[in-house]
């Protein structure tokens, strides 16, 4: 599994035998292999407590989760020793299940700073701020597409936002920061159907020749709107089955139990929050 099956090409993002533990040594992710390319939508589906969110945090470089074995490769280069900001600059993005509030910092000013941080890194450490007009045009277009109300742009980031507003703004950030690989952690939770449709539409729009996505969820629901190319069943820190979109329907019908190895209770395992 270290390279794309049937080819010698290295995928854009590759996880090789990835093991992740908490600071106290408890192993949560127990050997995951995964390859994601541009223009691909992968769904990782698993019950609560299976370690999906830990996987997402570990990919983004959360300091509380340690990679104890295996590799995370982007463009064939290891990310394991890189901090979250470097991973973001290389093109990773994580849409958080529970985005944090930053009081006093407006969505607009936050987005401008984040874009400029990436541009500065891309420009060899020299400031290269995005022209005001270009930023404004892009922001307005993305907000329009994601049906984010204008007034939200002037509010403090996630401060007092409803669950749905937070998720929309996560996707807005994704649209503005233009990652190459986006990981969406339970983006469907807290969204009503209309919001889900808009958010999924945004993801669908962005996945293409410049972006691939990993959608982490425990409901099949979001997959009605984001049609995945690949579906992986995640249980007890491992991918226990992989297949095409039909696998999601099978899960919907039969539940997770048939996929979970004997002796592993569906509620055991990692810390989801």
């Amino acid at each position, binding site marked *: 599994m270290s390279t794309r099956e049937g080819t010698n090409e290295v995928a854009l993002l590759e996880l090789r035998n990835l093991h992740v533990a908490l600071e106290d040594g408890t192993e949560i992710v127990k050997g995951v292999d995964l390859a994601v390319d541009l223009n691909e939508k992968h769904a990782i589906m698993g019950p609560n407590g299976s370690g999906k969110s830990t996987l997402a945090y570990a990919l983004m*470089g959360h*300091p509380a989760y340690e990679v104890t074995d295996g590799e995370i490769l982007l463009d064939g280069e290891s990310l394991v020793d890189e901090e979250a900001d470097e991973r*973001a600059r290389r093109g990773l993005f994580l849409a958080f299940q529970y985005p*944090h509030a*930053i*009081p006093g*910092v407006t969505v607009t000013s936050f987005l401008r700073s984040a874009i400029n941080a990436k541009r500065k890194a891309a420009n060899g450490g020299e400031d290269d701020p995005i022209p005001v007009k270009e930023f404004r045009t892009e922001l307005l277009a993305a907000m329009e597409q994601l049906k984010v109300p204008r007034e939200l742009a002037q509010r403090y980031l996630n401060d007092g936002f409803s669950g749905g507003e937070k998720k929309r703004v996560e996707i807005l950030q994704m649209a503005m920061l233009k990652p190459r690989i986006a990981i969406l952690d339970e983006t469907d939770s807290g969204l009503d159907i209309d919001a889900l449709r808009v958010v999924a539409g945004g993801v669908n729009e962005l996945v293409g020749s410049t972006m691939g996505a990993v959608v982490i969820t425990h409901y099949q629901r979001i997959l009605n709107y984001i049609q995945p190319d690949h579906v992986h069943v995640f249980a007890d820190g491992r991918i226990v089955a992989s297949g095409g979109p039909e696998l999601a329907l099978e899960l919907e019908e039969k539940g997770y139990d048939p996929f979970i190895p004997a002796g592993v209770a569906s509620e055991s395992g990692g810390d989801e929050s």
Partner: protein
Amino acid sequence: MSEIETRDENEIIREIRAEYDYGWHVDDSPIYKAPKGLSHELIDVISDHKAEPDWMRRFRHESLDFFHARPMPSWGADLSGIDFDNIHYYLKPTEKQADKWEDLPAEILDTWDRLGIPEAEKKYLAGVGAQYESEVVYHKLQEDLERQGVIFLDMDSGLREHPELVQQYFAKVIPQNDNKFAALNSAVWSGGSFIYVPKGVRIEMPLQAYFRINAENMGQFERTLIIVDEDAYVHYVEGCTAPIYSSDSLHSAVVEIIVHKGGRCRYTTIQNWSNNVYNLVTKRAVAHENATMEWVDGNLGSKVTMKYPAIWLMGEGAHGEVLSIAFAGKGQHQDAGGKVVHVAPNTTSVITSKSISKNGGRGGYRGLLEVGKGATGTKSKVVCDALILDEDSRSDTYPYIDVKENDVDLGHEATVSKIGEEQLFYLMSRGLSEGEASGMIVSGFVEPITKELPLEYAVEMNRLIQLQMEGSVG
């Protein structure tokens, strides 16, 4: 103190310089530099240089006696490091004041250029006073304001040109023996601003004073008096910086403000002294009927700051606000805060304090809210928030409240928070470095105050905060 003394001096200076943009000095040739130390002879020298009226000379001599008679304050920050014998109390940098920048000696002009003052004057200021050591070396007010009767002078010129007005108000809000450092200032004051805004005149653009210390072991004692007449408005801004030396300097100002009926005064400070300056300032305003006084007080620099801008609400319907930011980094103690005294009925006040401490710094809020007998219908709100950036740093809150009236509406909130790992991770996952991320959290924390500033100053304040933050990482 002991921690600092055990380390190599140059090492300390290097570390501080890395975080401070203004630590350079120039080699100049002053007209007169008093020998170190305080004495009645020195006071005569200062008075002679200024050719002052006798009442002022006597006032200085009396004040010096008050200074000697008073003990050092036993509360607040540690002031035991001040060596009063090792300070130059008067330094006259130029023969006369200029009203054109190019008339200044080259090295002094260079200093102002590097601080960006002439540029700022062109863009967004109605008037500028630039004090270098003990004297205001440059002063200019827009002509149309002069024609409207606005007076904006350095304090020495104010005393010469408007003696009655000065005598009427000088040391009336802050008596010469108010406290030890007000007494010191009253004895050796030099420079500062004298402002009078006539009835109904509203000055839309700010007047700015900039205070620069250049010499080592310098004492700067400017004295400012602002009189805002009925229904008039002025926004006065002061900024201050100094070079970094291995021994200490002292800055001890007195600022008195009178806002008459229906007038409004806003006084904004961006204090960014180097980390070898003791900054001990007395600021007090009185607000008459329906007048508004606002102190916006940003303290980023200095070794020790003790400063509690005060407002006495003397007339019915008067309103007072204190917005205070104190940022204490390595080796700094910011004992900041505010004081509001409600004397008249139906007066309102808000005190908002934001203190940040990092790298072993000590920040805090010390405030007094007093409601006197008869100040019925008082409304007041005090909010003090502290953000502590690491385990070595500290923040203290001393919110004194003294209420002698029943019919009042008072609110008080205080929070203490730390920057969480989760917040940092969230921002870093968007590509911000750790320094940029914590800087953003801090900028957000002080935003309720920076949003009150004119854009240019808000940008400057955020830039200074970012600079302090970046110095803390890596």
